[in-house]
């Protein structure tokens, strides 16, 4: 029994069980809804339990960062040596595994309710499209209720595979294992975004997600190859904890001018993060990814998968920051990260403030928050970034699940009243706080955490840590992030006001009902985390509260670095973060509580006019990409390579050779073969034929004539012989 609970074995089993669940559901139990979701839940539940056990074990290990719990197998031979694939748990893994395990389990439970398990099957529902609802008779009159998802089992198979990939990514002890999980997650996100593949928009969004992230992935693969070629390993411990390796990478120059190998590899890996964590300029896929089944895949694109990108750069922070100490000028990759992250944070926040779709607001908010973390890493605030990654996962998961609950309530209302409206448009909502009190309470907790409501929410502590770090390192980044925080609080207040406060602006909203316990219980659990998860990281320098805190989090994650990460101890960032959070919330509430009609012009549109509409259209980035990249490359593929180069040029040359051959051949035939060789041959043939025609006359068929001929011939022969030999 003790061996079964050995953390090394459990580490292997954490990803293995969800994978087994995927295989079993996909091959055997896909016909049974109940069996399928039971298996998926058992898999996720096991992984959760195992994760918690492993984390408990790991926390008891002194100096975990230097002595991670690890286990490896031989994966493929490379000449004399082997490539080893393994699992390990160190402080960063502990933190990531903790939020991944909790959120994944919550999603699994929530999904049972979201896909209406136990509801009747809709008569018009077909695979590939969202369920349209079913008619039920109740006490004499029929009414429409939500129906169960036709591809229920497939959904659970896919999210099990997704969980497998995420767990694998987290527990892996090397970059290749991470990349494997990374790519499988890409596939899962493709399949889940395109879950309702029958919809044109879903199919487009799925492909967009896969292709856009793949741009980052191929750069990342190059980074992998470079790192492997230079160091001979991809193991974290051997690269990142080894100062000699890091120094070699920093001092050796890469082929790109002025950049060390460490810098180049850092940039290549960060390209992967840009794709996966939807940073500018590859952010375009994430909002469209909201085409997936409402909260669940959306939430995957908020709490777990996009966190993988930040996890990657956090993991490779020692490499990215190699040669840098706090206070010094940033390394190239750090500079790029700070710039990209800060720009993304404010860029996405402005868009989020203009969206009307409840999920899209959250999608852009996710991009913005991820930009926050990337920027924090860029300026060296390592622990703060990881802290924000940790808290963000909880409250963003909560917000997405909450929005799913809202949409569910709206759909219920829309079906009940026959109101044909967009159930995701916040303008059609309003007053839902009274109809869905549990959802409202939990959403409020998440929203406050997102906007960094002081002291009581997790988001405040992590955001404050980032702002203080930025304040000491770079003023520009600090101002940008502070502005983004203001916008964050503003759009959160806008969202909460439009959705939950005021009066219902549509019939559906007036008839919305609270969701089932399978959905609200995960919300409640996540709400607890959204509030409390921040308390493990209260800085010591914080007035009053700091004295009670041990600042455990910063110390724990900080042990991953060889130097002390950037931390701020100043009152200015604290006051700033208090101001922007409260100010933004108040402003948002004040502006949007006046919206009374679904058709009313947005108050900001009144103020900003055309600028607002451009922001609402996401700064036309999609249109720009379509014009600059997509159309030309499609033209290049279709017209240039396939049609012109292959069929005109190369085949043209081949056909030219063929025609030349034909020409030579026909010249030979008409000039030499036909008159000379054929002439001779034909002459011989016709001569033979004529001679034969003469000779055939001799063949009379009469025996006696032949015999007479023979006798005559004999006589002639005798005469001849006699005259010769006489």
């Amino acid at each position, binding site marked *: 029994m003790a061996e079964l609970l050995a953390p090394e074995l459990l580490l292997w089993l954490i990803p293995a069980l969800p994978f087994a669940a995927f295989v079993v559901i996909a091959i055997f139990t896909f016909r049974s809804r109940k069996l399928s979701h039971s298996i998926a839940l058992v898999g996720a539940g096991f992984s959760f339990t195992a994760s918690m056990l492993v984390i408990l074990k790991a926390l008891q290990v002194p100096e975990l960062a230097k002595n991670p719990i690890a286990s490896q197998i031989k994966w493929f031979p490379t000449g004399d040596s082997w490539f080893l694939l393994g699992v390990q748990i160190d402080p960063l893994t502990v933190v990531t595994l903790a939020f991944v395990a909790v959120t994944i389990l919550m999603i699994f439970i929530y999904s049972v309710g979201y896909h209406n398990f136990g509801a009747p099957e809709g008569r018009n529902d077909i695979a590939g499209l969202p369920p349209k609802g079913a008619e039920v008779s109740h006490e004499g009159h029929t009414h429409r209720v939500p129906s169960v998802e036709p591809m229920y089992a497939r959904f659970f198979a896919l999210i099990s595979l997704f969980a497998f990939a995420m767990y694998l990514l987290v527990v892996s002890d090397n970059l290749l294992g991470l990349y494997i999980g990374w790519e499988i997650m890409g596939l899962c996100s493709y399949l889940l975004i395109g879950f309702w593949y029958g919809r044109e928009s879903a199919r487009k969004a799925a492909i967009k997600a896969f292709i856009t992230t793949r741009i980052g992935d191929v750069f990342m693969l190059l980074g992998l190859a470079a790192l492997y070629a230079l160091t001979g390993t991809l193991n974290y411990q051997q690269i990142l904890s080894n100062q000699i390796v890091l120094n070699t990478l920093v001092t050796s120059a890469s082929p790109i001018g002025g950049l060390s190998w460490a810098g180049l590899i850092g940039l290549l890996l960060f390209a992967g993060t840009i794709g996966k964590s939807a940073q500018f300029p590859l952010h375009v896929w994430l909002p469209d990814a909201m085409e997936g089944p409402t909260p669940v895949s959306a939430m995957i694109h908020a709490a777990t998968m996009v966190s993988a990108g930040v996890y990657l750069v956090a993991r490779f922070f020692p490499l990215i920051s190699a040669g840098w100490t706090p206070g010094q000028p940033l390394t190239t990759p750090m500079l790029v990260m700070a710039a990209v992250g800060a720009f993304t944070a404010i860029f996405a926040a402005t868009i989020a403030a203009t969206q009307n779709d409840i999920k899209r607001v959250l999608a852009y908010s996710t991009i913005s928050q991820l930009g926050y973390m990337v920027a924090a890493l860029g300026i060296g605030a390592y622990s703060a970034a990881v802290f924000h990654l940790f808290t963000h996962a909880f409250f963003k998961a909560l917000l997405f699940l909450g929005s799913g609950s809202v949409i569910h309530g709206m759909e219920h209302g829309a079906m009940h009243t026959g109101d044909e409206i967009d159930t995701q448009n916040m303008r059609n909502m309003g007053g839902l706080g009274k109809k869905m009190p549990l959802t409202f309470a939990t959403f409020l907790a998440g929203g406050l955490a997102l906007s960094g409501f002081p002291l009581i929410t997790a988001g405040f502590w992590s955001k404050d840590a980032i702002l203080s770090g930025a304040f000491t390192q770079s003023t520009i980044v600090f101002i940008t992030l502070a502005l983004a925080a203001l916008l964050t609080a503003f759009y959160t207040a806008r969202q909460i006001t439009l959705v939950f406060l005021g009066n219902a602006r549509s019939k559906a909203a007036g008839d919305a009902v609270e969701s089932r316990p399978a959905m609200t219980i995960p919300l409640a659990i996540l709400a607890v985390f959204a509030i409390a998860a921040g308390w493990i990281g209260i800085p010591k320098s914080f007035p009053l509260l700091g004295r009670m805190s041990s600042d455990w989090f910063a110390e724990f994650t900080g042990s991953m670095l060889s130097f002390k990460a950037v931390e701020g101890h100043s009152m200015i960032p604290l006051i700033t973060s208090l101001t922007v959070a409260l100010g933004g919330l108040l402003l948002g509430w004040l502006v949007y509580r006046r919206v009374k009609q679904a058709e009313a012009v947005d108050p900001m549109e009144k103020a900003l006019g055309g600028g607002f509409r451009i922001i609402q259209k996401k700064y036309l980035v999609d249109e720009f990409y379509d014009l600059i990249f997509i159309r030309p490359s499609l033209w290049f593929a279709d017209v240039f390579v396939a049609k012109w180069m292959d069929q005109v040029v190369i085949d043209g040359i081949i056909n030219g050779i063929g025609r030349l051959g034909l020409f030579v051949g026909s010249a030979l035939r008409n000039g030499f073969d036909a008159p000379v060789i054929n002439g001779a041959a034909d002459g011989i043939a016709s001569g033979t034929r004529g001679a034969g025609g003469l000779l055939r*006359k*001799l063949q*009379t*068929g*009469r*025996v*006696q004539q032949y*015999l007479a001929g023979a006798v005559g011939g004999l006589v002639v022969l005798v005469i001849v012989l006699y005259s010769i030999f006489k």
Partner: protein
Amino acid sequence: MIPLSWYLILAAVVMFIGLYGVLTRKNLIGALMGIELMLNSVNINLVAFWRYLHAGKPEMDGLVFVAMVFVVAAAETAVGLALIISAYRRRKSVDANDMDLLKG
């Protein structure tokens, strides 16, 4: 003793009678009889030469040849007659001039 030339002349006469029969008779049976005559003229020659060269000696080759020719002649007649009968059954004729299927 009759000189050898007499036998030879007799044989030549029989041979030419036979040859004439073979070449001129329209009836195939007649032609066949002509062939028999030609074969027998050869026999006469063989016996005559044997008598003059080997009489009283142990060599019997001339007689053996003659016996062989008899056998061949008998076989030939048998096959020839069978063919003629077969041809007659098909064409109701034993005329040699009618049988020119191999005409070129």
